């Protein structure tokens, strides 16, 4: 059976390491915040100017001056710090954030990512997505393997306008986990298959080319 949203987030949480500074996108990536392994310290960055995101506030304790990049009310933590958007993206662009987990519309086998616009539809803007994928050291994308019509979203080449070229290190879908050699020539490698999903099913549903990792068959 393919992974559900929580299972995909849990798999993404497996990429966290003790001491990491991490930026989480909206949607499934946000769920990762609640899945930090016991005993591990991970500091969450909000690109609108906060290091150290706390849990959502209790009813009656909302602070309009304290929101995350998705405009939700949040809290801070002991050890948090606030800074300007320029300083925040200095952190991001300068490679100080270890990991970003983001949603995607399309990923290509060489690590291109499209997740900000669909031609002809209302354009919302890329916000901080282009900066995150260009600057954060390691990019993990979490998305459904196929779109609503059943077409593969993991492609040989993206068809939508790109968010970044050669930026994705790992793709986690409901069907499996792929590693992508975005700086080299080795392309994509299937590392894990969701329990109960067959390699044949992944092959049938994937337009991208990929190699098989050790133990995957």
């Amino acid at each position, binding site marked *: 059976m393919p992974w559900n949203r929580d299972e995909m987030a849990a798999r993404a949480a497996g990429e966290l390491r003790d001491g990491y500074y991490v930026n989480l996108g909206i949607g499934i990536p946000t769920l990762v915040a609640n899945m930090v392994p016991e005993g591990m310290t991970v500091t969450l960055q909000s690109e609108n100017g906060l290091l150290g995101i706390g849990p959502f506030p209790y009813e009656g304790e909302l602070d309009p001056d304290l929101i*995350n990049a998705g405009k939700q009310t949040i809290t801070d933590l002991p050890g948090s710090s606030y800074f300007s958007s320029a300083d925040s993206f200095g952190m991001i662009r300068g490679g100080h954030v270890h990991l970003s987990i983001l949603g995607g519309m399309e990923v290509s086998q060489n690590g291109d990512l499209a997740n900000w616009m669909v031609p002809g539809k209302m354009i919302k803007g890329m916000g901080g997505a282009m900066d995150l994928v260009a600057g954060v050291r390691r990019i993990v994308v979490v998305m459904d393997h196929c779109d609503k019509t059943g077409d593969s979203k993991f492609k040989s080449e993206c068809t939508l306008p790109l968010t970044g070229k050669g930026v994705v290190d790992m793709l986690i879908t409901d069907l499996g986990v792929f590693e992508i050699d975005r700086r080299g020539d080795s392309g994509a490698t299937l590392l894990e298959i969701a329990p109960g999903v067959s390699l044949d099913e992944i092959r049938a549903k994937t337009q991208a080319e990929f190699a098989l990792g050790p133990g995957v068959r």
Partner: protein
Amino acid sequence: MSSKIFNSAAEALAGQLSDGMVVAAGGFGLCGVPVDLIMALRDSNAKDLTVIGNNVGCDDHGMWHVLANGQIKKVILSFAGDNKILAQAFMSNEIDIEFNPQGTLAERLRAGGAGIPAFFTRTGYGTIIAEGKETRQFPNPDGTLDWFVMESGLTADISLVKAWKADTEGNLVYRKTARNFNPMIASAGRLTIAEVEEIVPVGSLDPDSVHTPGIFVDRIVASTMREKHIERPTTRPRATKETV
């Protein structure tokens, strides 16, 4: 010295606006937005404005009013998704929208304020953001080469910012994530006006903790906004057995 304190947003803007000007305004969503100053801009009826900001208003809030009043010719922003009028005006080609990656927009404003006409960033390379812009390779610290895009600094004729506190010298302190784009926009304005929640006597701010030094602030008004709006109130349940 003549005082930087003005009695109202309208007085602070009086005589400073003209058609075709470039106006930058701080804020991220509804957070840290100079609401009074923006309404005074709306009331001025200045036309053909170019407006710079992360969102340029959310529905029924902030710069949305200036947009709805037909005063804006072009916007330079990062995210229009909170603003239906803007998105529609763009789809129908009524307004020129220049989309910027959020970090690039923040850095362009910082650069403009700091006298840097252009800089290179990895952000946007290989995307439509890089189209028509100069790209070139630079070495990483490890010696490998990456491609970068040249982006230009941004300045504004008038900058409108929102702070928590100002002293009478114009030193500003922001609160939590309401800081966002305000410091860079304060530095990028030929004339910078700050709307603040509290004006405190000179000497009452810790000089080590000033976010925007007074040199960047020309005029100050006390905000009349008494209630701050929240776009997406989000809470967690209280633990059921919690003792208060």
